[in-house]
C-alpha cells in the first residue's frame, strides 16, 4: 500500500474520483454520465433496482471495464486500462456475487492465495523451505491466521470450502480479499442469500474491517436495512443514471429514489 503515496499528499481525502463516465455494451447504455467520488475510510453503498448498473459500476471502479467516455482518477492520478494483477497491486480487492473460491482447497489455502501478490518468489529457497522462503511462508501463514481469527472461522480452517455452508463460504471469500491487505474493498452483494444471523455477523465484520484497518469499502447490497445501518454514504443508480447521493437518511427521503423503487404512482 505504498503505491502512489506521494500523490495522495495533494488530495488527501479522495481515493478515487470518477468523472462523467459513460459505459455501453453495443446499444445498451449501462452507465450514463455518472460522477462518483470515493473518500478514504468510508463505507459507500451502491443501490438500485435490478439492471440499474450497480455491478457495472463496481467493475469500472475495479478497472475490469474501461468506460468509453469520462475519466477515472486513482489517488489523484489518471488511471488507464490496466491488467488484473496490477489492480490487485494497486490495493483493490473484491468479492463476487456468486462465490468464486477454489472449491477443492481448504479455507486456509484459499486465504493464502489472496496473499499471492505480496509473496516474493524464489523457487530454490521455497523448494527447500529455508532462508527467506521459510520466513516468508511463516509470515504469510501468520497473517492468514490473523484473518481466520478475525473472521472467527478457526473451526473450518482445514475444511475444503466446497463442503462449507454458503454463509461460511462468503466469509472465506471476504477473508481472501482481506489477505491482500487492500486499501479499497469492493463487496458485491456480501449478504445475498444469508439468514438474519449470518447477515448480522457479516455486518459486524464489515464494520470492524472499516474501523480497525481503515479500509475503504464500496458495497452493493439489496437489503435496505443493512445498507441504512452500516453505510456512511449511499449512491442510488437507476437505468445507469445516478439519481441520488448522500447519507442514508437523505437518500431515504428523496422522492426520486422512492419512485425508482416503488414506481411512479
Amino acid at each position: 500500500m505504498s503505491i502512489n503515496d506521494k500523490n495522495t499528499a495533494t488530495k488527501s481525502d479522495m481515493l478515487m474520483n470518477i468523472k462523467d463516465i459513460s459505459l455501453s455494451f453495443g446499444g445498451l447504455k449501462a452507465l450514463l454520465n455518472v460522477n462518483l467520488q470515493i473518500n478514504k475510510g468510508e463505507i459507500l453503498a451502491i443501490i438500485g433496482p435490478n439492471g440499474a448498473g450497480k455491478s457495472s459500476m463496481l467493475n469500472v471502479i475495479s478497472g475490469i471495464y474501461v468506460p468509453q467516455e469520462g475519466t477515472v482518477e486513482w489517488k489523484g492520478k489518471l488511471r488507464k486500462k490496466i491488467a488484473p494483477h496490477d489492480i490487485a497491486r494497486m490495493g483493490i480487492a473484491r468479492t463476487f456475487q456468486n462465490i468464486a473460491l477454489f472449491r477443492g482447497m481448504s479455507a486456509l489455502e484459499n486465504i493464502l492465495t489472496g496473499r499471492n501478490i505480496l509473496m516474493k518468489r524464489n523457487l530454490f529457497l521455497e523448494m527447500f523451505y529455508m532462508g527467506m522462503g521459510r520466513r516468508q511462508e511463516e509470515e504469510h501463514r501468520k497473517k492468514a491466521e490473523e484473518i481466520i481469527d478475525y473472521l472467527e472461522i478457526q473451526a473450518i480452517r482445514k475444511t475444503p470450502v466446497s463442503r462449507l455452508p454458503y454463509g461460511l463460504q462468503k466469509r472465506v471469500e471476504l477473508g481472501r480479499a482481506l489477505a491482500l491487505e487492500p486499501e479499497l474493498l469492493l463487496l458485491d452483494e456480501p449478504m445475498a442469500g444469508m439468514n438474519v444471523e449470518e447477515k448480522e455477523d457479516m455486518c459486524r465484520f464489515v464494520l470492524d474491517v472499516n474501523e480497525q484497518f481503515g479500509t475503504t469499502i464500496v458495497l452493493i447490497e439489496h437489503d435496505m436495512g443493512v445498507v441504512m445501518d452500516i453505510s456512511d454514504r449511499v449512491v442510488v443508480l437507476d437505468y445507469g443514471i445516478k439519481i441520488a447521493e448522500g447519507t442514508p437518511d437523505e437518500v431515504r427521503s428523496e422522492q426520486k429514489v422512492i419512485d425508482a423503487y416503488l414506481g411512479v404512482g
Partner: protein
Amino acid sequence: MRKQINYTYFYREEFKMARDFDNLDTFPKILRDNALTFKGKPSIREKEYGVWQVITWGDFYNKALVLAKGFHSSGLKRGDKLAIIGDNRPNLYISIAAAQILGAVPVPCYQDSVADEIQYILDHAEVKIAVVENQEQVDKLLEIKDRLPILKNIFYADPRGLEQYNEKEIFSLDVLLNNEQAISLDLDEEINKTSKDDISIMLYTSGTTGRPKGVLLSYNNIISLSSVACEIENTSPDDEVVAYLPMAWVGDNIFCVAQSYIAGFCINCPESRETLTIDMREIGPTYYFAPPRVWEAMLTQLMVRMQDASQVKLWVFNFFMRIAKKWGNLILDKKRVPITARILYGLGYFFIYGPLKNNLGLTRVRMAYTAGEAMGPDTFLFYRSLGINLKVLYGQTEATVFVSLHRDGDVDPNTVGPAFPGVDIKISNGEVFYKGPGVFKGYYKNEEATKETIDKEGWVKTGDAGVIDNNGHLKIIDRAKDVGKLNSGKMFAPKYIENKLKFCGIIKEAVAFGDNKDYVTCFVNIDLEAVASWAERNNVAYSGYIDLAGQPAIYDLISKEIDKVNKDLSQDPELYDSQIKRFLILHKELDADDGELTRTNKVRRSLISDRYGELVNAFYNNKDHCFIETEVTFEDGKKGSISADLKIQDMNVYDLKDKVA
C-alpha cells in the same frame, strides 16, 4: 495405555517429595513453589493463530506477579472482589492468581449471562475490578456500569473491536502486562500473608430457586479435598486437561485450576467453542470431565453418523459393540474373563474402539468423570465398554464438589458411588446430608440462608432425596422438594421419570407433572439432531423446529419411547402409578435465556409450570389440543414471540407386573 500409568508412578515419587501442603496452604504459595518445582513445564496452553502457545509455570507466576502489581495500582486491596467474565483463557486464569496473591477474592461469572444477571452478581459481591474476555462482555458491562457505583475499572483480554471505545474506565490487560512499573509493595510478603482460612474464591450458584447465592470457599476447603482427589487418581504432572467448562462453575476451579496447581499438570484452553472437538483430538487429554449432556450428545452424534455408514461397516460396528457391551466393562474392572473374549475385545479395539476413541479425542483418557445430573445407564456403560474409565461423582458447590465418587473397580451406573474420603453422608427424612473438610464458609452476605443450609453440628443439607444401597453407594432419586404425591398417595419423583425419558436419545428434555394430581403427564423437547436425522431417513418433510415437533410421525416416535418407559415403571410397585398418561411435544426448546433452564441446564420446574400453565390445565381437562403463545428472548436480548397449537396425546397404561403374572 498401561505404559502410561507406570510412567505416572515414576513421576509420583518426585512429586510427593516436592509437596508439603501444611506449608503450601494457599494457592499463591503453591504457585510460587510450582514456579520453582515445575519451572519449564507447561502450565497453560492456548491455541491461538492455529498454534498451541505455551505458558510455563515460571511464566505463569511472573505474569501473575506483574498483573498483581497492576491490579494493586488500580486500587485492588485485600478482601476486595475482582470479577472474571469470559471463556477459558490463560489471561483470565492468571488474573485469578493475581487477585489471590493480593488477598483479593476472585468472583467468576457465567460468560453467557445476560447483563441483568451479571449486574446482580457484581452489585451483590461489591466487585471493584472486572476482568473480561472481549468486546461482547465489555458491552454488557458498559450497559450496566451506571448501576454499579463500586465498579472502578474494566480490563479486557482481547482488544478486538475495542480500539474506538474511549470510556475512561476500560483498559486492555496488555497495558498492565507490559507495564513493569516499580511499586512499593513486596509481593513475596503479600503471598506469605495469605492463610489457609482466607477465602480463595467466591462462586455464585446458578440458583435453581431464587436469586444466585455467593458461596465462599476457603483455600483449606479446596486444597484438602483436591489433594485427596489427586491422591486417589494418581494425578501426575504429565496429565493434560482441556478447560472448556464455564470458569464460574465450581468444577472448572477444582478439576482444572486447583488440581493443576497441586499436581502440576497442564490446562489446555481450546481456540473457540466451535473448535473444541478438533482441539480435544490434538491434545488428547488424560483427564476429562463432562456433564451427562455432553457424553450423551457425543453418543447421539456418533450413532447418527453410524447410520450413514455402509452396510458392511455398520455390521462390523454392531458386532464389536455387542462384544464390548458384554465384556468391556468387566475387562476395565480387571475381572476374570475367558481368553476368547479377551481376543475378540482386542480385535475390536484394533478395528473399532481404538479409532472411535481417537475420533472423539479420548484415546489417552485415564480418568473421566461425569456429574451434575443422572446419566443413562446405557450411555454410561457404552463409554466404559470402550475402555474409558468413566466414573460418576456427586457434589455441590457448597461441598467444594466432592461428596461421593466411584472408585476404580467399584462402579455402578445406577449410583453416584461411596462417600468421598473424609466426607460423612447421612440420610434423614429421605434427604441427603453431608459433613467434611470441604464444607463451605457460608453464603456471602446471607447469614439466614447459611444457617438454613448448615446445621449446628455441621451437617449440610443437599436438597436431594436419596438412599444408601447395600454396597454403601449413594443413590440420588430427585430434588427433595420436587418429590410429591399423586392423589393415589403414591410417591411422585418427576426427575426420575424425566431421566428415564431422556435416556432414549431422541428426547432432549422432559418435564413431568403429577404432584397432587390423579395421573402423571409430561412435556417433551425433542433432540433436534437425532430426530431430524430420523426424519430424513424416513422421508418426513419439515420446515423447522416447530413444524418438526408437531408432526404426527414424531408424536408416534415419541409415544413409542414413552410406552417403553411406562412398561418399565409398571414393574415397580412404588412407581406403578407414575406411568405417563398424557404428553405433548413443546413447540420451542427450553432455554436458559428464557429462564426456563438454569445456566447449568437444569429445569426450573415452578417457572415452567407457571409459564405453560394453560398447557398443564389442558392435560387435566381432557382437551386434545391447546393453543399457546410464548415470549422468547434471543441471544442478543431482543424479545419475540412464537405460538403454536399443540396436540396432546394419550398413552396406554400397563397393569402392575404382579397382576399380569
